[in-house]
């Protein structure tokens, strides 16, 4: 067996010029962790400011820059890339039984693009800042804003190319590099989810690109593409922005759903209930997700007719999510459930995603949205899905595959403790915001009427707990890198191909190309009670 990918050549140069998807995944992991911390600091400042109705530490102008920074960094530099570029990059070839992604060099290029875009965005955010919100509505962004719109917008434009490169790479890899016997219906559900995500990457991101270019053009040359006083149409910007950004919210959930499918199956020792339904529901979320963007504009002045159509499609797009939730519950039924940390995160995901999704239905309901839109209800809705859902799934996935990635176990007790604390802190932070929203507290307010203070203080308290809970994994993961117990090849007794190679995997992934002879999640010959795999004989490495 040849050397692990981690230590084969330890020079900095070999890391920075690597074409190994596993190393690129780690490069990405480092960068997005930094961005998560940055966005988290933004969140902390927001919650600090909102402790007092008149604000505590920030001026109005600074507050606006802070929440814009928080949104921009969290969305484009953390959550959109999160699972795809780290776990996805690491796992796609392993799960396919391939040696690498289809275009290893392009993969490295995409990381450099990502870093460049991140630096450009940071330059804009810190040299002058930006106060438009992450949505850049015109004409505020094109004419009135005093912030650094251009660098940020161009940074996000570049970021888009990085996403597109990743998407192209995944789709082509899944089509072309499946191991012998790996038919479409034997693919792990994680790959179906990433496939659907990649479709959105490839087809939605360029529209954002062109929109941002138009915005930059308008701002540079003062021409009226979107500004009505110069003859443009401000709603057109919103249409184009949401044409990307609604599909993008599914970029921010589908990979998480993939991870949860893997984890639930492993820790229940059962195939995923309704495999084909779960698989196709990912693709249909991606497809229907392209035609619901107008639900962000119910009060923006779109026509009655389009509002009705977009509302209806928003309900339709929720059906495949419902299918997934029910199928996960079905998977648990009759399984042999173990509650290790990854499973706790997965269960947290299912619960919190459902809350977020159900409140999405409030917003999809036309008359209800009129009351709730632009309030903290919306803020709570998307944090439930993006933080309670996707970030939980991301953490769950990191715990689940940590042994494979590093060859070390994380401390299980701490893992469970952090998962529980995150769940608690999260609900304390964001549940009060639903009530705030119903009561009418508008979002993006640096100051607020005193009647809202109690709930805001609760929310800030929750954020404190959440911050501690998110730092915990950072600490014990680092610890485990040096002190953690050595991980066996297949610590969870799972079935995917990635578990059939050593932990950490060798540079070429598999000593010989694996051959797939069974469906995914075939726990048939495992002992249900002990949950120990007797599948050792199937190891090819």
């Amino acid at each position: 067996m040849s050397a692990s990918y981690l230590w084969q050549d330890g020079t900095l140069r070999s890391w920075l010029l690597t074409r190994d998807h596993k190393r690129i995944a780690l490069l990405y992991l480092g960068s997005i962790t930094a961005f998560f911390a940055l966005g988290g600091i933004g969140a902390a400042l927001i919650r600090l400011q909102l402790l007092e109705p008149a604000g505590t530490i920030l001026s109005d102008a600074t507050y606006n820059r802070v929440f814009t920074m928080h949104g921009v960094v969290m969305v484009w530099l953390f959550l959109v890339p999160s699972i795809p570029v780290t776990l996805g990059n690491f796992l796609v070839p392993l799960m396919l039984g391939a040696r690498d992604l289809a275009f290893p060099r392009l993969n490295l290029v995409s990381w450099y693009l990502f870093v460049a875009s991140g630096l450009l965005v940071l330059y804009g955010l810190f040299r002058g800042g930006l106060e438009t919100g992450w949505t850049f509505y015109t004409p505020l962004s094109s004419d009135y804003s005093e912030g650094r719109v251009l660098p940020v917008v161009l940074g996000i434009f570049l970021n888009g190319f990085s996403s597109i490169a990743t998407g192209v790479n995944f789709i082509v890899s899944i089509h072309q590099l499946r191991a012998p016997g790996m038919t479409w219906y034997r693919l792990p559900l994680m790959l179906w989810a990433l496939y659907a995500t990649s479709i959105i990457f490839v087809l939605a991101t360029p529209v954002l690109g062109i929109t941002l270019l138009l915005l930059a053009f308008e701002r540079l040359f003062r021409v009226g593409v979107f500004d009505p006083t110069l003859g443009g149409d401000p709603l057109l910007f919103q249409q184009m922005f949401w044409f990307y950004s609604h599909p993008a919210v599914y970029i921010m959930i589908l990979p998480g759903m993939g991870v949860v499918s893997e984890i639930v199956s492993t820790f229940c020792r059962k195939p995923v209930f309704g495999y084909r339904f779960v698989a196709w529901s990912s693709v249909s979320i991606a497809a229907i997700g392209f035609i619901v963007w107008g639900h962000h504009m119910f009060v923006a002045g779109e026509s009655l007719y389009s509002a009705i159509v977009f509302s209806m499609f928003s309900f339709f797009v929720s059906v495949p999510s419902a299918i997934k939730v029910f199928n996960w519950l079905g998977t648990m039924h009759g399984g042999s459930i173990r509650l290790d940390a990854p499973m706790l995160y997965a269960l947290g995901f299912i619960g919190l995603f459902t809350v977020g999704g159900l409140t999405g239905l409030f917003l999809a309901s036309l008359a209800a949205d009129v009351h709730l839109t632009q309030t903290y209800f919306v803020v709570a809705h998307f944090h439930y899905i993006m933080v309670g859902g996707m970030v939980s799934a991301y953490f769950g996935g990191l715990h689940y595959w940590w042994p494979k990635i590093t060859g070390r176990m994380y401390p299980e007790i701490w893992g469970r403790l952090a998962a529980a604390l995150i769940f608690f802190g999260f609900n304390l932070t964001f549940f009060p915001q639903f009530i705030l929203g119903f009561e009418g507290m508008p979002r993006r307010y640096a100051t607020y009427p005193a009647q809202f203070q109690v709930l805001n203080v609760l929310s800030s308290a929750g954020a404190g707990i959440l911050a501690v809970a998110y730092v915990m994994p950072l600490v014990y993961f680092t610890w485990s890198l040096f002190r953690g117990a050595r991980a066996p090849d297949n610590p969870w007794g799972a079935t995917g191909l990635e578990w059939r190679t050593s932990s950490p995997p060798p540079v070429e992934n598999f000593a010989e190309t694996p051959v797939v002879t069974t469906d995914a999640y075939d726990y048939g010959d495992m002992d249900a009670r002990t949950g120990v795999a007797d599948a050792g004989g199937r190891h090819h490495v």
Partner: protein
Amino acid sequence: MSDGAVLDRHAPYETTLHRDETAIAGMWLFLASETLLFGGLFLVCLVYSQTRADGWAEGVRHTNLAIGAVNTLVLITSSAIYTMAVEAGRRGDNRRVMRFGLGAAVLGLAFLVLKGVEWGQEFSENLFPGPHFALHGPNARAAELFYSFYFLATFLHGMHMVVGIGLILWIGRKAHQGAFSAAWSTPVDVVGLYWSFVDLVWMLLFPLLYLIGRA
């Protein structure tokens, strides 16, 4: 997309054929993405050419039809010549790949030069949007809007041309080194796909920027 016909040890492909198919699939997917990039622009163009038809048409009337038409011919020819390079590549004829490639690249350059001349004229006539915009009257705003799109679209297309010419020159160099054979000429094909796409985009831009509403 690694060099040469030999497989590198860590490359994820089984055979060279497998690698080539993969490269072509990748290019198609990339072009799908590009289609949406330009598609967004076309969509906005179409919306405004309807809602602000008068001024839009006035803008169209001020573009230089002669240069536009010549350029269209130049680009079609370039694309056609490149097709011959692709054919030559399939036969493994490196000399002709190089020659046709150079031909296509030169025409591409000619396109850019002409475009530059046209831009120069437009700048000197103050047709670039901004406070000194040349046209006046009730439709000036919409005409200005037209010119925003005109410049953005031609700029974006021009950037694609630059990349395309670069790629073709790279192919020419490889052909010069004798890299292609009857068994292997995938890069020539892949670049061909891209070049045809750039051509196609112009085929859509030309009527939008020069013809519709001119009458």
